[in-house]
């Protein structure tokens, strides 16, 4: 998966100043501080919710949700290393490929389905979105925005975008379905998916509130975080 924005080079990190802060210091589950973008996601989840984290990695978010939100938090993870880490920590994680296995879950069996930095690695992102909103009341999706000005600058120079959040060269990038914030909203509209919330993030995973118009968001956000629903099922917002 794409590395976290904070893993970008020092040179690039200096190029952008945090525009805003969501709140205080990053929270921690146990002794490990939770990655800021994951913390943002966690803050969207209500206490005691049933949560499925697709591509849960080492279980950082699952652990946090279990301990802090007393959530019934479960995960799907493809990599054996990730699964073993999660199970070793006592988290509920199935080893498997979400694209093959999501259809198995019954309708409305979760409150939140989380897809963090994973959708662009999917073969059929639209199917995954549909499945997410069949299984869960809300979908929370985060991804790298390829319309960020730095990505555009790379293209202008004749190169594929390599942002801090997606630093791999084109041939090694897990993001086989790169998209922009606007592309994603168009897909949601096409699928009849309701956007409950759109949170734009800077390279540091901090919430950008400077821009109020979509065009600016599309240029200035390096990351995007969406809360989605099928309106009829969702009830009152996330």
């Amino acid at each position, binding site marked *: 998966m794409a590395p976290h924005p904070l893993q970008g080079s020092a040179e690039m990190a200096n190029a952008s100043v945090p525009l805003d802060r969501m709140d205080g210091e990053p929270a921690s589950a146990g002794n490990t501080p939770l990655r800021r973008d994951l913390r943002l996601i966690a803050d969207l989840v209500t206490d005691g919710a049933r949560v499925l984290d697709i591509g849960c990695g080492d279980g950082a978010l699952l652990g946090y949700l279990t301990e802090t939100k007393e959530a019934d938090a479960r995960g799907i993870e493809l990599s054996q290393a990730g699964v073993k880490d999660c*199970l*070793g*920590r*006592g*988290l509920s994680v*199935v080893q498997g490929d979400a694209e093959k296995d999501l259809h198995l*879950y*019954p309708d409305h*069996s979760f409150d939140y389905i989380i897809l963090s930095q994973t959708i662009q690695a999917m073969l059929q992102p639209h199917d995954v979105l549909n499945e997410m909103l069949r299984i869960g009341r809300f979908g929370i999706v985060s991804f790298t925005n390829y319309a960020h000005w730095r990505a555009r600058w790379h293209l202008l120079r004749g190169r594929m975008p390599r942002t801090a959040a997606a630093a791999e060269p084109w041939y090694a990038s897990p993001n086989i379905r790169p998209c922009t914030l606007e592309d994603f909203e168009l897909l949601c509209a096409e699928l009849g998916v309701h956007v409950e919330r759109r949170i734009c993030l800077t390279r540091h995973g901090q919430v950008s509130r400077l821009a109020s118009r979509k065009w600016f968001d599309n240029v200035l956000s390096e990351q995007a975080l969406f809360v989605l629903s099928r309106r009829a099922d969702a009830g009152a917002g996330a």
Partner: protein
Amino acid sequence: MIDQGPQETEADKETGISSPTFEGVTPSPEFKEMPAVDGTDLPGSRIRLSAPIQLDCGVELGPITVAYQTYGTLNDDRSNAILVCHALTGDQFAADTHPITGKGGWWEMVIGPGKPIDTDRYFVICSNILGGCMGTTGPMEIGEGGDRPYGLNFPVITIGDMVRTQARLLDQLGIERLFAVVGGSMGGMQVLEWVARYPDRVFSALPIATSARHSAQNIAFHEVGRQAIMADPDWQGGSYYGTGRRPVRGLSVARMAAHITYLSEPALHRKFGRSLQDRAELTYGFDADFQVESYLRHQGYTFVDRFDANSYLYVTRAMDYFDLASAFDGVLANAFQGAGTRFCVLSFSSDWLFPTSESRDLVRALTSVAANVSSCEFQTDRGHDSFLLDVPEFHRVVAGFLDGAASAAGLR
């Protein structure tokens, strides 16, 4: 699936294969009366269940005796009990010295103070299965009012019957709810049966290297074993007790065939290759020229010291009959409908007896009823027996799963 051979060393536990250290000539298993026919000279606990048990085959069996071992201490509210279910040729001596072989318990790496199933924290019960030959009622035992062992008059038993017996044992011990049921291979079948039959009595379930139904290939291997036993003239139609003869050759061959299925080709190759046994060249005869032959013969003839041939027939049959979905309209998911149990389904990449695909089927069924399920396949070349061997990452996951379940159960 348990025996690792008396010559086993710690190094063998890493490879999963014992070194043959005896002469490479055909060993002829010698006759020894099976010890402990009535179980009274076995260490550990025995309990008599006086009310008969209704078996799946329609017969009522009873009273019956159950032999079991416990480890750790039951807490005040009786909430820390873990039932460990043993595999085909295992027994209740999971974590202490085996009274016949003198070897350590088959799961002593997993059960004990500070181990994945931590006896400082949990109370562990392991009972010999119904139909077994280590003190629980089985074909080598004399039934109530009878004057000779059951032999083939023992009714055919199922995994369900084994579990029913265990439930009765727990009733007697005053344990209403198990914190966990854990088991590999046939032990895993019992774990699944437990959840399907007594969902409210099982907080968490750890089925390992197992399947919700015995495959055609596995039934086929079992049939080879049974035919080997029944083809031995010393079997005598199953009535060999007290005759001074018992089917040690047939049982030995059954064990040899089965043992191959517990390993894997890469592991056999790594350990033996085509190496010769105590000789420089081929003998152009039928002695055990190859180390692998010698090893297998050793596995076969040591097994007969501690296992009863009729019991082997009955227990393999119970596995063959296992198809959990069959009692639930053929839909496996129905077996777990509404179960609040937390599952952790584990498998090993080189296990061709209970391959990961069968664990995956199980996980799919559990997922489709929104069960709380975890799963993991471990990469190892040591085959089915991996669950008995030193696989640290497997042990870490067992410990982690139980720990997570303990938090969820509010267990201190």
